[in-house]
């Protein structure tokens, strides 16, 4: 029988997963694919405007002109270069989606954690407010506000963030409540650590995996939400270029010039699917290697 000597005491962990969180997350094939898609789309959206051969607003040819004449993919409903419009159409969407997600997640997480920590009447009040907010469909609410105060990009960001908040608060409260009953949180209360310390240092790190998934999901929701608003005409306003807006501008010419609708739609899809794959894969990896408390 072949046996080897035991290694040093206490160092017998069988195949410990890589310590570094990012490295561990990247061991999964799904997260790598998702991350590549997501980063490609973000880089595409940021660098795109600088690579555009023409101005996205300049009229270059006849409406729905076929490819040719220096226009690689042809022209859109107003005769503008499709390539240039696609290249510069992601920048607004990207920064607005990221800003809306950051704001919504921060707001929702704060509400959720405070509700879970305080309990009692504070919890009840916050959750009832959240319930009321949940009953407003995000898009309709955004349309209502935009119709009243006029389209502004920052108002759009805030509206989408508010739309994300209630769901986020519910999820975070749900995942923080069992953590509140954990011994290390109770210990922190017995020694009288400040609520801020308990929430930031004891509770928040223990709910990172649902938080990560939620960030991923909410980012995609805000992309879809913003693109839909643009499509409906309440988001980015013409003549600025935007993927959602392009779909709506060119939908009448779908039979003649399908690329003007398809490519922006595919861009939005790649963005959201990539982000989703990454968030879900990361959550699964974190859950597998850390969620088990052994």
């Amino acid at each position: 029988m072949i046996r080897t000597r035991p290694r040093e005491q206490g160092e017998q962990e069988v195949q410990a997963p890589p310590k570094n969180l990012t490295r561990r997350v990247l061991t999964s094939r799904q997260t790598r694919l998702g991350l590549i898609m997501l980063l490609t789309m973000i880089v595409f959206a940021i660098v795109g405007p600088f690579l555009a051969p023409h101005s996205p607003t300049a009229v270059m040819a006849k409406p729905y002109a076929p490819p040719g004449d220096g226009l690689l993919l042809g022209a859109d409903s107003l005769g503008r270069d499709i390539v240039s419009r696609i290249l510069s159409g992601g920048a607004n969407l990207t920064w607005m989606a990221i800003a809306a997600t950051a704001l919504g997640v921060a707001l929702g997480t704060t509400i959720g954690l405070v509700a879970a920590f305080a309990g009692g009447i504070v919890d009840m009040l916050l959750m009832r407010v959240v319930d009321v907010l949940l009953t407003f469909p995000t898009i309709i609410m955004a349309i209502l506000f935009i119709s009243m105060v006029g389209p502004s990009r920052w108002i759009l960001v805030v509206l989408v963030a508010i739309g994300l908040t209630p769901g986020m608060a519910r999820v975070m409260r749900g995942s923080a409540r069992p953590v509140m009953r954990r011994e290390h949180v109770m210990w922190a209360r017995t020694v009288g650590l400040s609520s801020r310390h308990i929430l930031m240092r004891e509770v928040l790190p223990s709910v990172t995996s649902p938080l990560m998934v939620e960030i991923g999901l909410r980012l995609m929701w805000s992309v879809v939400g913003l693109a839909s608003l643009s499509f409906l005409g309440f988001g980015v306003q013409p003549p600025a270029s935007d993927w959602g807006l392009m779909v709506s501008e060119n939908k009448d010419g779908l039979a003649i010039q399908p690329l003007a609708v398809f490519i922006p739609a595919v861009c939005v899809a790649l963005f959201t699917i990539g982000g989703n794959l990454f968030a879900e894969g990361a959550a699964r990896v974190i859950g597998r290697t850390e969620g088990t408390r052994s």
Partner: protein
Amino acid sequence: MNAVEVTGLTVALDDGSVIVDDVSFALESGQVMGLVGESGSGKSTVALALLGFAKRGANIVGGKVVVGGVDLLALGRNELREARKKLIGFVPQDPATALNPAMRIGTQLTEGMLGGRKENLPRIREVLKAVGLPSDDAFLRRHPQELSGGQQQRVAIAMAVSKGPKLIVFDEPTTGLDVSTQARVLEMVGRLCSDNGMAAVFVSHDLAVVGAVGDLVTVMYAGQVLETGTRDEVLLTAAHPYSIALLESVPSTRQRLPLVPIPGRSPAAGAKFEGCVFADRCAYAEDRCREAVPALVTAPTGGAARCVRVEHVRQNQTCQVKEPLRRIESREEGRASVLSVRNLNASYDRTQVLFDLSFDVAPGECVGIVGESGSGKTTMSRCLIGLHESQTGVMEMDGKPLPLRLRDRSKAIKQQMQYVFQNPYGSLNPRETVATSVMVPLKHFYGDRGKAARAKAQEALERVEIPWRLADRYPAELSGGQRQRVAIARALACDPKLLICDEVTSGLDVSVQASVVELLRSLQNDGLSMVFITHDLAVVRSIGDRVVVLSQGRVVESGEVESVLSAPEHAYTRGLLADTLEVDRPDAETSEVPG
């Protein structure tokens, strides 16, 4: 012919590491074998392998399990299932999850049997009577959640017994039960097996339980059988150093003895060894122990032990005599007590769980609070620290009034009273290193940062014997015992006057429990007062100065540990003491009555 014969049973993980190595034993009809070992020893894997089953990631790679003349491991899938149905009963650890909550008791009892429900009912009623449960139709119509834990476990046992198998495998069936229920269940298991002529394998981590139920006892460690023999051979005259060490670490209700922990840490499942698996932690190890795997040899006492130095160990072991510990008598009487509790009442919603609790804790004293589950002991400890919301009563600390609620307590009080939780896996923040965990209260109470804090943290960790090289690890990388020590170190870093220990040893193996108990004893010698909550009278005997016995939220008896446990006055304490199982040890008879 033997009813059960296991030869060379070997189980390996997918990556090839062996977790159960060459286990062999034989049982006659009606015999019960106790299989004992600490966590990670492979005892549960053996239990499952007896059913021809291995958990995901593990495979039975060799050996024979012959039950009633059938080799289970040689059967195909469907044949194996049929064979299990006829030959083997299994009683799992947790009856609450083993029974289907959506099914009536009667249905669950009959579904595993051959034949229809009607013809099996008389047999079921007979077995239910044998396990001490009602057998009328009203009982058979109940659902599992309408029964208590003890009743559920009896139903699970009845399920296993009723089909009349050749072998029953019990996987820690009494771990979640109170001592009084456990005593009754164990007595019943022994009777059922001998009456029905069934062989049984009884897996447990508790030597006393195995001693109470087993005709034979097998000790496992790191996947190997280290010692096997009859109950008396193994428990009274243990031959293997590991069995001896394990017995030394078990506390006793009869005497206040020092507990001897086993040095080092038990190996992870699947660890590889060149020689004897226990050599690294063995007091008798010599060079040849590390060269080759020792064979099971017949010990002079009659059993078989896997040790090359059996003779030597046997001779030297008898020389070890443990002196009963004397109580430290130097307490200053008349000084204000560190904590005094008067008329404490507590309730959950409208249900009152504590009634008029009163007791005192003198400086440097350890007060043991003992009670079964549901006695309110954990609620009481939460009341002391202020975490419980609805409570009334008067508490004083050092003669000054102590507010009941945490938010009314001053920072100084929070620093002087520290709480150590039962569950070592939850009491440390999983995302903070050991050193950071210990430094958090230092910064909070004393404003220490950086180097000063690290130095103090190091001091606290060294006091609980956690080497500083572990300081930058995360709790998940430590064993249960180590985590519990870190939790104690974190409490010590606050420089408390009173330590409240809530069942701190109940999640730990006996050898680890011994080391934690000895650590707490050394802290007590440094002048720390303690409230030690436990369900285990033996632990109280080994560490407590005074004891308060709780039953259903009321104090039924309190006083000096020696007098209460030697001559209990209340019927409840007497019953508890009688039901607490004890490992019979030779030195308990020879040594004098404790003073």
